[in-house]
């Protein structure tokens, strides 16, 4: 089973697994492998390996220890305030959502039995019956009403306040039915409700020292900045799972220490492995990796409303000056996918595959800078560790710039306070965007004229009109074609250069089964606790 070609990584395993899951035949897979230069003999053994991973049967029992990368006293059990992977993992184990996104990015029902609408504006939510909270209380529409309304209260400090605002009216119909009225038609509501912040808590909850949810695990210990322990919920409402008796989640912020803890067997799952450690991890037979490439990216933002972004040609020149392949191959060691300057990643079902990434073309960039009258000027680029790998990306751009006679000055600023002081403010700076479940959320958050995080201050009436048209369209084909065109507009007109979608690599003990990539992020969209099992 260890017969793999050199340079074969967990990413390739994941790709093969993914193809099998999508129903690819053996012939198709071998053809794909041949095309990428893997011999038939080696290819066959790789397929067996991926096939085995796909066909495993769950086993029950055991205690799993997993480690994320950040945790602090700001850790919370309040889903509205959840802001880090650690919060999402914890909350997903203790609570449920109305809906969730499966590994193919499709919406599945969780606490909701069905969510229906005729006009995408008025929605009827029917809850599952017989679901109970950990304290024995039965789930009713009051709990959902309370959970959703909280996001509108500024005192709660909800992270999704701006998204929740579109729910103008939330009313209880009866114990298991609710009606949600939106300010304008939005066919994506079921996907929006799959965001981690919309986890359902019990009516009237204000104390978040312990979690009282409907989730697969009961909160046993919660120490902010230290650890969370959950034990199996014996009365869990789903027919299948959880498999683990208990799980513990800690954070080890040092990359090497996290890998070492996994290699020594102290933990069974280490999230977000540095690309530099991937080879080390994969050379060890007791450990495997799981690679998720969804819409996480660090992007170069050039504000279109001030100098130098307002000079025609500058933004386009920069997009040609970014050596995407170097960033993908050298900086991320292959653990990234080349992107085409728009935020909808291939993991999203509305991704436009016809839109090709710009080639690295310094000569063309030079001509464009010349046209903008900026050739030879000094332009500062603000980068920070707060935006993943942005300092290295800035250096790559700086070097390419030097070759064509541009003088970029990389200003490296501290992570601390980056988001409030530099992001959205500096003329040329880096940002970092986490995966979102729908193009609508991405576009309304980042590119609409009134978007709160309009990184390049992009304004287009046509774009706004298309956004609102697609939002209300219940016809899939029509939405898809609008979204495809919008992706082209963003790639060509907005001042945001998105070089690559960054892969997240989780490393796990080979005893852990059931972990699948999910478009909402690593560790199975942070919801792994419920789905994984431990072989003995």
């Amino acid at each position: 089973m260890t017969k793999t070609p050199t340079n074969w990584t967990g990413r390739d395993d994941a790709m093969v697994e993914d193809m099998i899951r999508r129903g690819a035949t053996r012939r198709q897979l071998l053809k794909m492998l041949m095309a990428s230069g893997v011999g038939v003999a080696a290819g066959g053994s790789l397929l067996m390996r991926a096939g085995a991973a796909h066909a495993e049967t769950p086993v029950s029992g055991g205690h799993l220890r997993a480690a994320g990368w950040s945790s602090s006293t700001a850790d919370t059990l309040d889903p509205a305030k959840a802001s880090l992977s650690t919060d999402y993992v914890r909350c997903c184990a203790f609570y449920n959502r109305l809906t969730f996104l499966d590994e193919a990015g499709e919406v599945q029902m969780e606490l909701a039995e069905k969510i229906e609408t005729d006009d995408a504006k008025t929605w009827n939510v029917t809850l599952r019956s017989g679901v109970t909270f950990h304290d024995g209380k039965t789930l009713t529409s009051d709990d959902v009403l309370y959970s959703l309304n909280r996001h509108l209260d500024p005192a709660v400090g909800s992270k999704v306040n701006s998204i929740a605002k579109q729910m103008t009216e939330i009313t209880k119909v009866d114990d298991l039915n609710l009606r949600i009225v939106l300010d304008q038609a939005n066919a994506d509501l079921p996907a929006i409700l799959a965001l981690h912040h919309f986890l359902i808590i019990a009516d009237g909850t204000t104390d978040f020292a312990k979690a009282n949810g409907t989730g697969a695990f009961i909160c046993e210990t919660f120490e902010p900045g230290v650890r969370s322990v959950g034990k199996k919920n014996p009365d869990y409402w789903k027919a299948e799972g959880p498999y683990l008796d208990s799980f513990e989640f800690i954070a080890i912020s040092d990359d090497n220490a996290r890998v070492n803890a996994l290699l020594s067997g102290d933990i069974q799952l280490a999230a977000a492995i540095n690309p530099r450690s991937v080879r080390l991890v994969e050379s060890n037979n007791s450990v495997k990796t799981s690679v998720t490439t969804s819409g996480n990216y660090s992007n170069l933002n050039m504000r279109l409303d001030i100098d130098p972004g307002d000079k025609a040609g500058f933004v386009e020149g920069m997009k040609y000056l970014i050596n995407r392949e170097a960033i993908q191959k050298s900086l991320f060691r292959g653990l990234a996918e080349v992107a085409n300057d728009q935020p909808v990643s291939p993991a999203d079902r509305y991704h436009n595959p016809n839109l090709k990434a710009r080639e690295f073309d310094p000569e063309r960039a030079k001509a464009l800078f010349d046209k903008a009258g900026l050739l030879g000027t000094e332009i500062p680029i603000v980068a920070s560790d707060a935006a993943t790998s942005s300092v290295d990306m800035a250096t790559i751009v700086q070097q390419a710039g030097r070759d064509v006679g541009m003088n970029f000055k990389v200003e490296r600023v501290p992570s601390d306070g980056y988001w409030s002081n530099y992001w959205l403010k500096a003329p040329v700076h880096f940002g970092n965007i986490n995966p979102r479940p729908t193009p609508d959320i991405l576009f309304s958050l980042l590119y609409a004229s009134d978007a709160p995080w309009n990184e390049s201050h992009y304004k287009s009436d046509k774009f706004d009109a298309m956004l609102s048209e697609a939002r209300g369209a219940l016809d899939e084909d029509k939405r898809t074609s609008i979204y495809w065109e919008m992706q082209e507009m963003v790639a060509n007109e907005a001042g945001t250069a998105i070089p690559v979608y960054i892969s997240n690599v989780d490393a796990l003990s080979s005893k852990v089964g059931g972990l699948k990539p999910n478009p909402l992020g690593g560790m199975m969209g942070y919801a792994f606790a419920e789905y994984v099992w431990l072989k003995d």
Partner: protein
Amino acid sequence: MLLSYSTSILVLQRLAIALLTLVIVSFAVFFATELLPGDVAQILLGQAATPEAVAGLREAMGLNQPAFLRFLGWLAGLLHGDFGISYVNNMPVADLIGDRLVNSLRLAGVTTLVSVPVSLCLGIGAAMWRGSLFDRIVTVLTISVISVPEFMVATLAVLIFAVWLGWLPALSYGADVSSFSAMLKAYAMPVISLSFVVCAQMIRMTRAAVIDTINTPYVEMALLKGARRSRMVLRHALPNALGPIANAIALSLSYLVGGVIIVETIFNYPGVAKLMVDAVATRDLPLIQSCAMIFCVSYLSLITLADLMAILSNPRLRK
């Protein structure tokens, strides 16, 4: 009586100065925190910090009151032994600190038990046989240990003992500490990493202090009288070197309470150093202040203790 009148005055003066230092430090920490960009509401909301959201959260958290007034309120509460409520997660600061302080003190305690006897023996030994092979080996080793950063020592220790040999756990927390051998396992690596750093300094300082006194005429006199080398050092020289040695030990140990962030990070040990870093990152003023006070108190008490030892061991100061 051990403490005469003038010694008591000296001790009381020390304590008064310590208290004053605490107040000055807390003001300094407050002003430094105010200089940091962003406040707790902005930090908590992170990327989602739209102006309305920040204003709403500030209102809800009572942050609209001027920062200085909030600080004075916290100081007044402290006089009653109340550390205040953390802005970030609404838990009493005392609860947040409680367990972690115990953890930090335990780690510091075990490290002290290991490192102080070892460094005293090696330091005094090196001074006693100055210039010998033993002295040279100790010197070379201490110098090289001082020069190696502790994250390197810690990471190497994990690689060797946890990953390759599999003898010890890579993480120190959550390990079973019910039996003595289990505790030994859990603490072995953090204590080794920390001891490396503190021992090296203490050995150097002890050796220097003892050699200083050995060079004085009265010790030479003892030698001329025919005292054995060990008697000359232990009976005649050492009592006079106690003051400087106590100070060196105090300085090294004061580092163990608040300065062990690297070891806490690598072994995932939940102590107060990490708590302080978290507090600063989230601009959680009550927590920052409380941690700063704890570090300051531990530092001051160690230094004061060392001063007292110096006073008591020196008849000229004791009178």
